[in-house]
């Protein structure tokens, strides 16, 4: 079965640079979530989108922005990168309204800020 695809899998950036992370949800899934997992930490919710509209917002810094496109893929844009942004960024997708479906996670993008 198709899974959530994230690209790139690894990304190395310098401080103050920008980064763009991409997420391709499972086919027919209409909701995308972004989570950030710092070293040795639990995943923290950043932001979610349903049908291309932002549906919820968590602890996402103002330097970050995200959107969901017409093909349901999503991009997380991160500017003025800081050392503390080094983390594993997960995307998850789900089908809203499905009584038995749930969030399925991608493999993550490991961002290292030097």
């Amino acid at each position, binding site marked *: 079965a198709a899974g959530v695809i994230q690209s790139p899998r690894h990304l190395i950036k310098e401080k103050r640079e920008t980064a763009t992370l991409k997420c391709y949800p499972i086919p027919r899934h209409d909701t995308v979530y972004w*989570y950030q997992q710092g070293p040795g930490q*639990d995943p923290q*919710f950043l932001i979610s989108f*349903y049908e291309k509209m932002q549906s919820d917002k968590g602890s996402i810094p103002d330097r970050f922005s995200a959107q969901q496109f017409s093909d349901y893929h999503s991009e997380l844009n991160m500017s003025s990168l800081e050392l503390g942004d080094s983390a594993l960024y*997960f995307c998850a997708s789900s089908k809203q309204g499905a009584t038995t479906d*749930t969030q399925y996670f991608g493999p*993550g993008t490991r961002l290292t800020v030097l």
Partner: protein
Amino acid sequence: AQSVTQLDSQVPVFEEAPVELRCNYSSSVSVYLFWYVQYPNQGLQLLLKYLSGSTLVKGINGFEAEFNKSQTSFHLRKPSVHISDTAEYFCAVSRSVSNYKLTFGKGTLLTVNP
């Protein structure tokens, strides 16, 4: 708001021994409960979920969990563990099955020794 407490940050066990990973939650509304597993340097994989119905839920890899509403617990169990079960296990809650953010516990590192 929801919160999740995983009572043990690390659980070392010997191969073929039984294991229980504890999870308690707090919420003012009904929640849905999940266990995810994260192998080293990998993404999050859904082990099992409780949505409704039978309080005993069976998941993949021989794991099961029991929902106890009065104790607000959702402990994960396996009768006999293998070396390959060594991983980080996260308990998570959500207000909705498919369109609401997950709130994770801090995780429990299960280490299975020969």
